[in-house]
């Protein structure tokens, strides 16, 4: 599903990832770890087409991202569910309206299953609440629900538990594991060891970013 082939990228003359090659199979669950600034987010940005490699290739859904024209980026992103640390919920919309957003963007009518999805992430009774009325954990779960609302093939999360307590983080992690068990490919960038421990018993693997390098297929958790 995702393949890096000798991919290198840098900012402002500094090499962040150098000659990275890795393969993520469909239905896998991977953690991307490393110290702050190591390049975890860069790996994700290369996948969700916010960045293109300076050299080498990154292939997502079988397509070389350098050859994806701008007008086709949106269609590729609709096959992904992206959860970022700051949630990016739209403040002027309710929880339910935020969860429905991917359907509206795709021009589809939101169905009743989205209420079940909200209940699944534990927000069944908070559907009308605004993001500002939610706790950090609830916001993150709402963001996760929105990310998976359109049933994407690939779920990408960048420090999804960075702003929540340990209990909320464990709950969010259990949701990712469940999604993976449902066949979704999940990729989570985190430096939170507790989050990874919450995935114990799953088939998760760890991609460690260090010195601009990443292990090819990761090591078992």
């Amino acid at each position, binding site marked *: 599903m995702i393949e890096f082939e000798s991919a290198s990228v840098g900012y402002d003359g500094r090499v962040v990832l150098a000659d990275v090659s890795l393969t993520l199979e469909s239905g896998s669950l991977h953690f991307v770890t490393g110290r702050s600034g190591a390049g975890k987010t860069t790996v994700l940005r290369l996948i969700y087409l916010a960045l293109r490699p300076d050299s080498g290739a990154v292939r997502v859904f079988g397509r070389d991202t350098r050859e994806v024209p701008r007008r086709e980026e949106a*269609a590729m*992103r609709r*096959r992904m569910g992206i959860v970022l640390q700051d949630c990016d919920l739209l403040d*002027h919309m309710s929880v339910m309206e935020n969860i429905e957003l991917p359907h*509206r*963007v795709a021009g589809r009518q939101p169905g009743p299953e989205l209420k079940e999805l909200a209940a699944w992430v534990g927000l069944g009774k908070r559907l009308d609440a605004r993001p500002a009325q939610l706790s950090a954990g609830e916001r993150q779960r709402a963001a996760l629900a929105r990310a998976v609302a359109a049933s994407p093939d690939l779920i990408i999360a960048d420090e999804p538990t960075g702003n929540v307590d340990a209990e909320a983080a464990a709950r969010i992690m259990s949701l990712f594991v469940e999604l993976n068990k449902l066949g979704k490919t999940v990729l989570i960038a985190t430096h939170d060891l507790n989050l990874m421990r919450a995935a114990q018993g799953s088939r998760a693997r760890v991609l460690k970013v260090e010195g601009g390098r990443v292990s090819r297929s990761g090591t078992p958790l």
Partner: protein
Amino acid sequence: MRALFAGRRGGPPIAPGGGAIGGLIALVAAAMGFLAAAAAIAGLAAGEVAGRWSADLARVATVRVWTPEADGQGAREAAVTAALSVLAVTPGVAEARLIDEAAQRALLAPWLGAEADVSALPLPSLIDVRLEGAGPDVADVSRQLSAAAPGAEWDDHGEWRGPLIRAADRVRQAAAAGVALAAAALAAMVAVAAAATLWSGAGVVRTLRMIGAEDAFISRAFAGPFALRAALGAGAGALAAAALPFTLPQIGVETGLETGLAAGADLIVLAPLLVLSTALVAGLTALAATRAAAWLVLRRG
């Protein structure tokens, strides 16, 4: 329709409300709508007055009969009688009437004073001619008048009507330019406001992109509410402008100062059309301006 303008498809607006910028757009649109509608009304009024004056002048003509002072009053009366005889049998002439000395004095009173001795001035005798149908053949009647009374001249007031029509055309062109400038100013204002909103709403844009929104979807989401505000504001401004003639003192024909701005049945019919068309043009202008601004901003983002 409202859902379309609000940028929603079965849900709440995707772009934030716009807050102060949204209010500002409505206010500017109201001002521009007022100016554009006022210019349009002024242009229509100018056309109406010029048309009426021109039509009035086209229905009358004047025959001036010059006779040398030395020939005396008898020759003058004979020439007038000859001219009147020609006019009496000319097709297209309904009535021909000599303007007597009292009436001439009244015509000249505004310039010379009521007590002026008009008889002492070297003035021609004037014959007021009312026309019917398409009027007479001017060349033919001029020839016949010259033959009957060598000092008689036919004046169909073309010298006055031409400049009047040209002046009315200029006023109409100025009004059209005013409408176009108001629309351009509104477009520029909305484009700047839309660009500012898009920049300040970078978080919303980023979120929409993350969930796979096309640029066209994002620009529609922002353009709809702006277009709605511009349409409502401009409509309100146009309504105020359309109401203006109803508040003016009614200056009638009897004063000779008809402005064409008088509130009449025409304006009652015209006002709703003016308000709707101003709102529509403002809405579409804002829609185009916002989408153009969004296109530029999103391409850079």
